[in-house]
């Protein structure tokens, strides 16, 4: 939480790049331990993205959810992960390792680019001879140009596709969670996270964001979480006497 991570243009930075930067800054290798260690920094960066369109931050939030899973193993010892969750942890680690390799390779390319260029033989002087093509008509020219113009991508088209997360941000979730916890002393995690979701896909996203929000509140000491047995629902309580 101490180090506010700043990036110049967040919309062009991906979660993998951020994550790898955080890990390499601590001089660690990709592992559960290192990922767990950078989770807080990652989430605090995420919170700085408040003003960025949700579509841009969606990738970050999905990655944050996986990080939270990793971290939650130590934070909530009773928590048992499903195969799917274990799968996304493995996938994130593997992606990071592959990304790290290409990033390093990219640095190698940067070092040699433009040094020791192999020169092409320039075109010899031309004596043009007018040779059109019988298929060349005004109409064909117009049509070809129209097509070419249509194929220029619009900037908006290049937003990340993951628009699953609608208008929900971590801050909103924390706000709502604090309010609810204050109202009722004990709140079921499942009950809370399911609220407001309109369909299954959305409810999964709500679940992820809720989890992030809870961890944030736990860290701030506002709530305590308790899970009686494995697979059991997680209880959320406002901390009055208990300190976390």
């Amino acid at each position: 939480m101490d180090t506010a991570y700043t990036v110049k243009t967040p919309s062009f930075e991906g979660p993998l790049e951020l994550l790898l930067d955080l890990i390499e800054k601590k001089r660690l290798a990709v592992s559960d331990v290192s990922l767990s260690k950078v989770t807080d920094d990652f989430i605090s960066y995420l919170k700085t993205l408040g003003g960025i369109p949700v579509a841009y931050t969606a990738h970050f939030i999905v990655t944050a959810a996986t990080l939270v899973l990793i971290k939650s193993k130590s934070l909530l010892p009773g928590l048992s992960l499903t195969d799917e969750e274990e799968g996304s942890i493995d996938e994130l680690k593997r992606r990071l390792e592959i990304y790290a390799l290409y990033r390093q390779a990219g640095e190698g390319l940067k070092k040699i680019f433009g040094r020791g260029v192999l020169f092409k033989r320039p075109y010899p002087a031309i004596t043009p001879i007018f040779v059109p093509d019988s298929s060349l008509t005004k109409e064909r020219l117009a049509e070809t140009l129209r097509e070419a113009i249509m194929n220029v991508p619009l900037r908006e088209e290049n937003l990340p596709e993951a628009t699953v997360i609608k208008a929900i941000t971590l801050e909103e979730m924390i706000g709502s969670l604090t309010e609810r916890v204050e109202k009722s002393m004990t709140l079921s995690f499942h009950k809370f996270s399911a609220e407001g979701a309109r369909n299954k896909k959305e409810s999964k996203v709500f679940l992820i964001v809720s989890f992030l929000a809870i961890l944030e509140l736990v860290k701030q000491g506002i709530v305590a979480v308790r899970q009686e047995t494995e697979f059991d629902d997680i209880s959320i309580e406002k901390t009055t006497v208990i300190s976390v």
Partner: protein
Amino acid sequence: MGLSQKIEAILFYKTDAITVKSLASILGVTESEAENGLRELAASLSERGINLVRTKDEVMLTTSKETSPFIEKIAKEELEGELSKASVETLAVILYSGGATKSDIDYIRGVNSGFMLRNLQIRGLIEKKANPKDGRSFIYVPTMDIYRYLGISKKEELPEYSGLIESIDSLSEEKGN
């Protein structure tokens, strides 16, 4: 006169990159004969001032790497700007893998690479081709120009080529494909 001499003359005249396929058709030989001729030519140029560059499908003659400092002095060609971190990363994926789809690149980098790919195409460093594995999709492949700017004559001359390919392969196997 042997095949390698004919190839040398054609490439010299052509100045631009040419596919092995069209080279074979100009010469009236099979592609594998053309490949033999190219191997012979590369060998005969090993100690010369000119050099044969080979991408996956294309070949071209260039000045040799050792002579680069002299040619730079008389060259009009100017490289526009440095490459950003994001562009070298994207180029690395395309160069080392020999060709990648947009979704491959997006997945590896964890971001949408659409604009980056367009910029690299405009600069002539990569090009979009029909995917040989799936005609409806496209792959991005390195151009002759990116080889030239990096000063490499074939992909095996990329920095740490074999080590990186090995590491990538072993990571991909873990996934089970």
